[in-house]
């Protein structure tokens, strides 16, 4: 197998909630501690930090803790670190870390994503909202027409599937229904009550064809993954999960100029870098900030043809916990909370280690795909337990 000689070792997650009082730095520390404990590592063995999108000064709730701040707070002697938004979406931070350990720049890299968007909304004096009274960059092409949210931009791709390929609301609903069913088995999930088809179909529209339950919601949490070098995995006590292949292809970094969302070229490029095939995959953890993104990822990754995603998930059995391709077994972002990309990698590792508890998929899974983004930016990781 062509490998990147990088492994995910310890993973951790803080409390996940809405309007948490615990500070974002302490939430990050909680997740770091859990990851270190699982790996059997001590802080002094950490020599790298990687995050996305770095400290977001204009909108602190989106990303309150920068890599520099974490290095300082934890007393890390970092021989390599990275944190910034211009990367192939959230899990691009893991791609960067994998390349860094492969290049010998560090041995154990803390990769993290801390979100504080719900708390920020409730404490605007501490965490001011993003100012939207000026439009520049990409927003100058969208804001004047009140195309104000990513839901508007994603909905247009979803509408094309409705009109061109006949995707129905009942098919689309299977993402939210599957997420919410799985979230009910995840003690840390944000929303633990299952969703019924009737509730879904009677929900209010946000931006057609996407309704309220097609959207994730602001969450406060931190998720950590430790990326370790091949020559350092003898130092960890947990089963290392090998990063077999990585992809993050961008064609047009603009929501409205790309004919296809970035998950399509990214999914195609992932398979050029591995000997595994889609039929080898035991579970998929696919970004679903909006439900349609998971459908597009199924197509982009070649689990079905372009335009066939709706039929692929129809009825929900295939993607259910005990189906042939279990999807978003932790609840996705719609059920487990807007962990913003890192939750998908965290869950892929949990499942490959057989640590899913009530939500563990059967059959001793050894290969998983996890993704982040999918719109103008996308990242896919193929993970394997050897």
């Amino acid at each position, binding site marked *: 197998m062509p490998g990147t000689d990088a492994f995910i070792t310890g993973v951790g997650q803080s409390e996940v909630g809405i309007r948490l009082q615990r500070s974002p730095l302490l939430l990050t520390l909680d997740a770091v501690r859990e990851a270190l404990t699982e790996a059997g590592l001590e802080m002094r063995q950490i020599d790298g930090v990687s995050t996305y999108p770095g400290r977001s000064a204009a909108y602190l709730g989106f990303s309150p803790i920068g890599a520099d701040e974490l290095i300082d707070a934890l007393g890390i002697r970092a021989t390599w670190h990275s944190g910034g938004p211009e990367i192939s979406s959230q899990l691009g931070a893991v791609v960067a870390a994998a390349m860094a350990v492969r290049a010998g720049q560090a041995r154990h890299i803390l990769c993290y994503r801390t979100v504080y968007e719900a708390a920020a909304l409730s404490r605007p004096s501490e965490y001011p909202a993003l100012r939207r009274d000026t439009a520049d960059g990409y927003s100058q092409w969208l804001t004047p027409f*009140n195309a104000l949210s990513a839901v*508007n931009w994603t909905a247009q791709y979803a509408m094309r599937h409705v*009109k061109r390929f006949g995707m129905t609301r009942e098919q689309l609903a299977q993402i939210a229904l599957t997420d919410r069913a799985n979230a009910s088995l995840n003690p840390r999930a944000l929303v633990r009550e299952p969703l019924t088809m009737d509730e879904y179909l009677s929900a209010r529209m946000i931006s*057609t064809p996407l309704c309220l339950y097609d959207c994730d919601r602001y969450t406060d949490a931190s998720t950590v993954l430790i990326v370790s070098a091949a020559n350092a995995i003898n130092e960890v006590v947990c089963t290392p999960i090998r990063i077999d292949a990585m992809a993050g292809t961008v064609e047009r970094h603009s929501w409205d100029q790309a004919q296809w969302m970035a998950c399509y070229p990214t999914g195609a490029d992932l398979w050029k870098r591995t000997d595994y095939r889609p039929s080898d995959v035991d579970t998929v953890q696919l970004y679903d900030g909006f439900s349609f993104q998971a459908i597009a990822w199924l197509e982009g990754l070649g689990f079905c043809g372009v335009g066939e995603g709706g039929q692929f998930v129809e009825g929900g059995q295939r993607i259910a916990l005990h189906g042939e391709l279990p999807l978003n077994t932790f609840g996705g972002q719609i059920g487990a909370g807007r962990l913003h990309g890192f939750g998908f990698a965290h869950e892929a590792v949990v499942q490959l280690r057989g640590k899913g508890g009530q939500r563990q998929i059967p059959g001793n899974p050894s290969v998983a795909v996890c993704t982040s983004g999918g719109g103008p930016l996308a990242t896919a990781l193929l993970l394997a337990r050897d």
Partner: protein
Amino acid sequence: MDTYTVNYQEWRPGLDVPYVIARIAIDGAPGVFLTSNVVGCAVDAVQIDDRVRVTFEQHGEIYLPLFEKTG
């Protein structure tokens, strides 16, 4: 009209909903799209592949290119 969505969410107080957000493919400029609004018709009267023409809405010195259905 390459694709569209009807927005129902009142993102800010006073926002007049619902309205059509559409991705307009420009005649003679393959691969170039404008995100805009389709105005002058009911929100449920739009379809992918509808032909539209530009109409400008003036805001001070700024003219926003909006679109309306032809025929």
